[in-house]
């Protein structure tokens, strides 16, 4: 195209010179400036940026990582480039998951695993990330298309499946176990799983997988009325798992009875979802790159601009068997954890001793008291909730196992007999 435009400019130039009537020069000039503009546009057609081998801290317009590497220079993050070693799995590529994926992609994360079984619809356009021309594509395909354009350095894996089915769950588990990206990594093949799904069933499935794999994960959610949300860090055995207590949600702050639920299942806003995705990825970056405080639970009530926080200890009577195993392992590892903490404290003390004492005298006998004794009250048990948080579902009622005799007589009946009995009833 550029060649044709150049020829056109030359033609216009010779035409201008051959014209004897100078009154026509103005319109020729106008045509020339139009062609100039088109030439300029033709030069700026989108070009895919090529892959970058190392993250550079050089401050030039063409470096996609200069502003991120500046975090290191400013002392916020010790080693930003480590982000390229990390793998993050995002389950649910909807209003929160897709935005979280874009944020991590722009941050230069090493590898993203994306899971969703849904397709992009026009009804999704009130949220961020997906574009109208992607309607009809699977969310995973559309996400890979956009994300690989934004940052080709990120390794993207997409899984179009439903993790709650038996088959989907097996694929989900084996994809998390796969260690080919970083064979030296301990544990599973990913550093963190982010749950960005919109229903309780799928959250329970992520919980099941992470408990079995001893995999740290973060849960996120936005309420059905679109005005509140939350993020939660779950470390199997150390913090409450998702099945330890009924899920915690932020009370909307409006009287539940005045809420109009008739005729709609869920509302959504790009704002609330964007805020929750931002909180989730911020917590992710702090967790992976080891800076600041990683929040165990952070709620967001948009109507009152209220952000409740809390921590939850695991439930020793949790209904999830894998959670109980992780709890046992965590308790067994306590001596090793204590020794490590002590060694760290001593190392810090020895460097501190080398410095001059901060205060030469201590007229008022002020001393620093160790607050580790307070730790036991730090984690709240599930029945004492901070203001503004409520349980989404009731706990299961206590129930007694019936005497063994009844269980025995059900065992005698053959499964095939029962199936035939039901089919016989179905037949007429």
């Amino acid at each position, binding site marked *: 195209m550029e060649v044709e435009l150049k020829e056109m400019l030359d033609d216009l130039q010779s035409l201008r010179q051959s014209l004897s009537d100078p009154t026509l020069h103005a319109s020729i000039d106008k045509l020339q400036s139009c062609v100039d503009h088109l030439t300029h546009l033709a030069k700026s057609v989108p070009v895919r940026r090529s892959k970058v081998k190392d993250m550079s801290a050089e401050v030039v317009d063409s470096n996609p990582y200069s502003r991120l590497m500046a975090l290191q220079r400013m002392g916020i993050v010790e080693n930003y480039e480590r982000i390229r070693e990390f793998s993050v799995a995002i389950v649910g590529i909807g209003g929160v998951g897709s935005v979280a994926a874009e944020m991590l992609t722009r941050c230069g994360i090493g590898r993203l695993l994306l899971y969703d079984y849904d397709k992009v619809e026009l009804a999704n356009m009130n949220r961020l990330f997906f574009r109208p021309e992607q309607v009809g594509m699977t969310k995973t395909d559309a996400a890979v298309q956009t994300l690989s354009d934004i940052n080709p350095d990120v390794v993207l894996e997409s899984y179009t499946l439903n993790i*709650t089915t038996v088959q989907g769950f097996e694929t989900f588990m084996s994809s998390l176990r796969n260690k080919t990206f970083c064979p030296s990594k301990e544990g599973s093949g990913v550093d963190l799983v982010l749950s960005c799904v919109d229903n309780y*069933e799928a959250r329970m499935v992520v919980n099941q997988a992470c408990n079995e794999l001893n995999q740290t994960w973060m849960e996120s959610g936005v309420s059905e009325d679109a005005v509140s949300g939350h993020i939660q860090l779950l470390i199997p055995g150390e913090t409450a798992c998702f099945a330890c207590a009924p899920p915690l949600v932020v009370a909307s702050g409006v009287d539940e009875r005045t809420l109009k639920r008739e005729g709609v299942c869920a509302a959504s806003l790009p704002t609330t979802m964007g805020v929750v995705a931002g909180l989730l990825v911020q917590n992710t970056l702090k967790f992976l790159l080891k800076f600041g405080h990683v929040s165990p639970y952070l709620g967001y009530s948009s109507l009152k601009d209220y952000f409740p926080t809390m921590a939850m200890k695991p439930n020793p009577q949790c*209904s999830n068997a894998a959670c109980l195993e992780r709890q046992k392992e965590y308790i067994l590892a306590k001596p090793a954890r204590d020794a490590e903490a002590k060694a760290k404290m001593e190392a810090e003390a020895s460097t501190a001793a080398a410095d001059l004492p901060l205060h030469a005298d201590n007229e008022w006998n002020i001393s620093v008291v160790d607050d580790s004794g307070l730790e036991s009250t730090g984690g709240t048990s599930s029945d004492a909730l901070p203001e503004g948080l409520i349980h989404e*579902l009731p706990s*299961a009622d206590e129930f007694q196992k019936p005497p063994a005799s009844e269980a025995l007589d059900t*065992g005698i009946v053959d499964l095939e007999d029962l199936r035939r009995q039901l089919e016989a009833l*179905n037949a007429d």
Partner: protein
Amino acid sequence: MEGWDPNTKSTLTQIPLLTTKAGPRDGAAWTQRLKEEYRALIAYTQMNKSNDNDWFRISAANPEGTRWTGKCWYVHNLLKYEFDLQFDIPVTYPATAPEIELPELDGKTQKMYRGGKICLTVHFKPLWAKNCPRFGIAHALCLGLAPWLAAEIPILVDSGMIKHKDDAASSNES
């Protein structure tokens, strides 16, 4: 259980409760659970037939009993409306309930999630959570699907979103 009609309540008390807490990944315990599911479904179907309130057919679509398919129907203004019915048993069952799907109604009502999953959040999910693991497939049909059909089908018919199969056939001929 406040707010439920006395009929549903008395039916519910007659469906046998389940005792084995096991999901499709639990091997022999799942087989035991499956037997209990069949016993409850058989009792519920028999009860519906003897009360002249037969309203569904359901059977396992695979030998593992993790996928179920069938039909359900609802009578409105003396006309019978019948729909395909399907669901998977989730890996976290029975901690989470099966997500019941009516694929033919996908996109026709707002009280449905994509893929034709009926919305059970308010009227059914808290009950299921409270009664885990004693409720099974039969309870999910009785307390989840039946009230959903009773609330939604009259609206869908009256608004013209769904047509009776005889009407649909005659309008095609004309």
